[in-house]
Each structure stands twice: as C-alpha cells, then as structure tokens.
C-alpha cells in the first residue's frame, strides 16, 4: 500500500517541482518491453500507441518486442528495459527488482482467468482430467495462464505434463495456442482468457473452432512493471498517461483496440496468489 500512497503523493507535485521534472523527462528514452500477454502482432496499432505514449508523457518511448516472456523478464531485471508488460508469473519471480506501474482493467476488473480450451467439435471432453493421453498446447513456459495454471492443476492431481499428456508443446504465444487447438494439432490448450476473448472479438473464425472447457478463478492481470531504478518523474509521467487513457479520445480508441477498460495502480499483493502457486508447483 505504501507504493500507492507514493504515487498519489507524486500526483500532488507543485508547479515548481513539475518544471524540474519536465527537465528530467525531456528527451528521456523510455524502453518498454512487450510480451505476447496481449495480441502483439499489430504493428500499425503499436506505432499509434507508441506515439500516443510519447506525446502525452513527453518521453521518447520505444517498444521492444520479444517472443518469449523470459527474454523480456531478463532484460528488465538487467536494467536493459525501463518498463515491461509482463505476465504476473515472471513478475512475482523478480518482484524485488520491479515495481508495478499500472494494471490493466479487463471487463472492469484488474483480473483475468486462465482458459482451458478444446476443439469445438470435441464434445466428449468434459473436464481437464479427460485430456489424459491427449496432445496439449501450452503458450509460454513463463506464462501464468498458459503454463503455470495447468501445471498447477496437474500438480494437484499428482501428475506431471509428461506423464499425463501423450504429447505437449509450447507455442510461445496465447494466440497460437488457440490456433493449435482450432487446427486440431493439439487436443487441448491453456490460454489467457483475456487473449481468447479479444480474439473472439476480432478473429471469431479462429475461436469459433474452440470451446472453453474450464475457467480458472480470477488472478491479477499481467501488469506494466518498471525497473527499480527508473527515475520517479519518469514513472509518474508514464502512470499519468496510463491512468488518463480512458478519459481522452485517442486513449479510449487505443483501449478499445486492446479490449481493455483502462489502467489502475496496483501492487505486489494482487499477485501474491500467483507467488504462492509457484511455490507450490515448483517448490521455489
């Protein structure tokens, strides 16, 4: 909670202090790492978003995209990135070096679910247990919804993926998990509910070939995190832009494309259940 108070204090800066902050901000090159926690394959949209963030914050924002969570997580831990949109799982594993900057709101809540999906034509599978001996698609090994949660389910059953499934593989992306299940390559898969719902809106032809078998309880939505050493003025400026997005026209349009309702402040406590689950499943 002390972080939220700090953010509020930042918001109450006087005009004299603001002028000095502007000096720091001016020309600051902010590198934001993006992971496939959302549909990151929309170049034109990302450019619009980048320009929006730069103009509103006064920072020189650049996006860095990597295909795995792990690369982004390592880079921000190693200070090569300033901000990253990470899954809750890698965040909790490096939370001592990272601060939660903003948490997206999906359907009005800063939470999401892990979906277990099967082929739409597969009426026989009634629960996760029925996937025994089948082919299963995980998204990223460091994804909560696409990997940790199903492994948690298996852990509760006292099984490992290698024992339980005939074959399992990683697609390194939530969207591709949906494609793998839709094409029949995998019999089942684990995917971020947010990505599945967004896909259902913009590419219903893919999701229509899949069926949601089970939804996990709500967990903290993948947050924007800042490296520990990021100047406060910069972090604050960026937070203001995120929090204000839903209040202005272009921001609202960007949120519409992201299928998000806005950004709110957050802290580690929102992700404590994920941390607990890692400890349970992986023993670390």
């Amino acid at each position, binding site marked *: 909670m002390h972080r939220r108070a700090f953010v509020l204090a930042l918001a109450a800066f006087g005009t004299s202090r603001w002028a000095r902050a502007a000096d720091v901000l001016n020309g600051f090159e902010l590198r934001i790492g993006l992971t496939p926690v959302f549909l990151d394959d929309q170049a034109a949209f990302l450019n619009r978003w980048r320009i929006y963030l730069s103009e509103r914050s006064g920072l020189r924002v650049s996006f860095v995209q990597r295909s795995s969570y792990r690369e982004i997580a390592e880079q921000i831990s190693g200070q090569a990135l300033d901000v990253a949109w990470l899954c809750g799982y890698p965040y909790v594993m490096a939370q001592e070096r990272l601060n939660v900057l903003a948490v997206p709101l999906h359907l009005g809540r800063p939470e999401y679910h892990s979906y277990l999906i099967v082929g739409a034509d597969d009426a026989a599978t009634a629960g996760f247990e029925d996937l025994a001996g089948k*082919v299963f*698609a995980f998204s990223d090994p460091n994804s909560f919804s696409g990997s940790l949660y199903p492994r948690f389910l298996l852990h509760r059953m006292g099984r490992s993926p290698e024992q339980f499934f*005939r*074959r399992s*593989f*990683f*697609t*390194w992306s939530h969207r*591709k998990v949906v494609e*793998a299940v839709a*094409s*029949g*390559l*995998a019999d089942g898969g684990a995917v971020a509910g947010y990505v599945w719902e967004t896909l259902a809106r913009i590419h219903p032809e893919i999701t229509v070939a899949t069926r949601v078998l089970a939804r996990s309880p709500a967990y903290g939505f993948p947050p924007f995190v800042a490296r520990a050493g990021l100047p406060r003025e910069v972090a604050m400026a960026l937070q203001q832009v995120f929090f204000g997005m839903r209040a202005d026209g272009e921001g609202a349009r960007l949120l519409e494309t992201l299928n998000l309702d806005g950004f709110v402040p957050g802290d580690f406590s929102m992700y404590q259940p994920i941390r607990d689950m890692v400890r349970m499943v992986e023993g670390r």
Partner: protein
Amino acid sequence: MLRFKDLSFRYKIPLRATFLVLITAVTLTSANVAREYDQLRNDLFANAESLGSVLALTLVTPLLHDDLWRAYEIIGMPVRHEPQAALGAEWLLVLDGEGRVYASTRPREHPVGVSGSEVGGSVARLLADYDLPALHASQAVELADASEFHLLMPIRFDGVYLGTLVLAYPKSIFVPRFHSIVVRGALVTLLVLAVLLPMSWYWGRRMADPLVQLADCMSRVGERIPQMSECRLYESRDEVGRAGTQLKLMLAALREKEALEQQIIASERLAAIGRITAGIAHEINNPLGGMLNAISTYKRHGQPEHATARTLPLLERGLLQIKETVAALLVEARLKSHPLTTQDLEDLNTLLQPHLSRRQVRVLWEGGIAGELALPSTQVRQILLNLLLNAVQAAEAGSEVVCGIECAGSVLRCRVSNRGEAIPAERLNQLFEPFVGAAGEGNGLGLWVTYQLVQQLGGSIEVYSNAMEGTVVTVILPLEEGA
C-alpha cells in the same frame, strides 16, 4: 435408311475431309495432353523437391529442439501461402525418426504422436513400401490407387536421420491444366475446320462434279439415247475425263445402231406392205380386166336400154379408176425405156411449169448430166417428178425449190429441197407408206410409188426435215452395169 456409301460424292468427299481434320485434331490434342502431363509431372516433382529440400533444412532445428509448434508453422507455410493456381501441396507431414507423426498440416487426419502405420490413407502404405531411414535423397512416389503424388524428403543433420518430410500433391492438380489444353485444342480445331471445311467442300464438289455429270448422263441412257448436247461432260485426260470420252463414243455407236435398226424396221415394213399390195392388186386386176372387157363387149354388141346406157359409162369410169389406182400400187418396172438424157430433165421442167405458176414457186436446177446415163429414163423421170411436185406443193409461196443432180462415180445423186413447214417426226417414219398423206394432198401414193421405183432400181432414198432448213429428199441411184 440412308447409308454412307449411298451418299453422293459431293458429300462423301467433304465428309471424309472433315473426318480427317477431326482425327488429326484429336491426335494432336492427345499428344499435347500427354506431353503436357509429362511436363507438369516433372515440374511438379522439381518444385516439390526444391521446396522439400528447403523445408527439410529448416526443420532440422525444430526437430533437434523438439519444437513442435515451430515445425508445424514451417510446414504450414507453403500450404497457407501458395496461391491456389500454382502447383501447391495438398498436405505436408513430418514423420519423426521412429516413423511417428511429428507434425502435419492436417492434424486431424494425422494426429500428433501417432505411429504413421496407424494413420489412414497413403501414409501407412508409404511407410510399408519404403525404408525411410535408409533414404538419402528425395524420392518421388506415385502410388497407383492413391489420389495424390508423394515426395519423400529425408531430414538429416550431420548425417543423423531426424525424420522424413512427406509432401502430398493432388493428382487432380493437372485437371484444370488439361481442361485448358483441351479447350484450346478444341478452339484450334474449330478454327482449322472453319478454314478447311469450306475448302474441302469446294474441292470435294470440284472432284465430284465430273463424276456426277457422268453418272447423270449415263442414267439418261434408257428408252432413248441422249443427245450429246444434253450431257455436259468434263473434258480432261484424267480417269473421269477418259470415262467421259469413252461414254461419248459408246453413245455415238448406240445412236448409229438405233438409226440402223429403225431403217431396217422401216424398209421391212415397206417391203411387207409392198408384197401385200402387190398381191391384192393382182387379185383385183384379174376380175377387173374381165369386168372391163364385159362392159366393152356389151357396149359394142349389146342393145342397152336407156337407163343401162346411162349406167354403163359410170360403171366403166369407176372400174377404170380402180384400175388406175391398182396400177399405181403395182409399180412395175417392166416398161422398157431409153437411157436418161438431159432432154428428160428439160421435159420435167416443162411438165412442172403449170404447177409452178399456180404456186408462185421457182425451181432452181443445179448440176446436171452429160450425155446418156445408164438409167431407165421413164422411172427416173417419174421419181423426180413426184419429188418435185411434192416439194412445190410444200414450198412457201414465192420461195425456191432446189433440184441438184450430180453424177458421182457409179451413182446418180438427186437432191430436192424446199423451204417451208417441216414434216412432223411421227410422220417421217411412215412417209413412204401408201394412203398415209393428209387429206387433200393427192391419193397419198406419190411417195409410195417413188419408193417402189427407187427400190426397183436398187437405190436409196432419205428424207431430212427440220424447221430451219426445210425438207431435203436425197435419192441415190446406182448406174446400171454394162449399159
């Protein structure tokens, strides 16, 4: 039922030409299709091989790292992004080192991790027929009853066998190409036909027309022999031309024969008539002589009463008329006469004069005779007089009758011609028969007598008559030998 062999050559020749063009077109199109098939098949396997070798190289890393999704994306690329018209693969399949399905672009048909020999369709047969780990180069496979061509491409890394890439191409991939070739072939055929058909019809007609004319002309030969002017025959030295020439010769011979036959028939008839009339005339002559003698005796010695005296001359005149007629019928050459001289011809001219002035017709004498001719003058005068009187009678008023006389070798040729209405053809045949002449033209015995006289002199008589030249009678009399 019209059979082809009954058709006229006019149609047969063009139809055969059309048939030939069609055969040629079908043959050429088939050859094209066959060549195109080979070409396409080679292209297909060349394409498949280059694609397969690139994919096999690309698949090494995912296979080594066991990255199923990456392998799936790699093999999905050509299926997803090849345009439909190109020689696109139907499906691709990666079998791992143990022959299990690693990834397929048709995961529902080829489930991940299932042994290839348990997968339906052609995969199991490929596995059964080929020892995949032993394969060192790509292998094109055409299973007879499968609907696809296959290319087997081993995936090797550093000599180690990792798996096999199978590319499947539908055999129906050629159908649109074949379709377009056949359509193109049909179009070209139609074009060629459009050009060749009118030509072949034209040439066919040109070849057939002489034959058709020949056949037409020959089919007219039946009850009568066609005139040469009725048959248009093709003139040339080829076979048809020669047949035409031969036909002309045959027709001419036929016509000659026919004329001869008719002549024989006519003269036989006249001879028969002559015999009958002579017989009847003799039979009449005998009682007639008696009757005339009786009347003469009665007139000289009898005392006839008034009525009888008036009747007897009537009877006598009637009997004399019968005697004259019979005498005319009985043309007897018994009369002795002197040889023919120019004087006889002049006498004829004198005899004709009254008739000429009445009809306003002139006689033109041509030729003549020199000295005496060994022919009985009485008969010759009778013949010429009869002919000239007929000619004058038939001549148009104010026209000329021509009498040509010439002595040629051992014959005397007399030619009497006049202008005027032609003698109808049906009368020409019976011209010399007695009592045939139209009413009011004498007793109809003139030409009969003439004919009999000519016959007795061993000569011939011919009549030629048409509207243009009038009527010409030609008499040929042989001179008596030793006279």
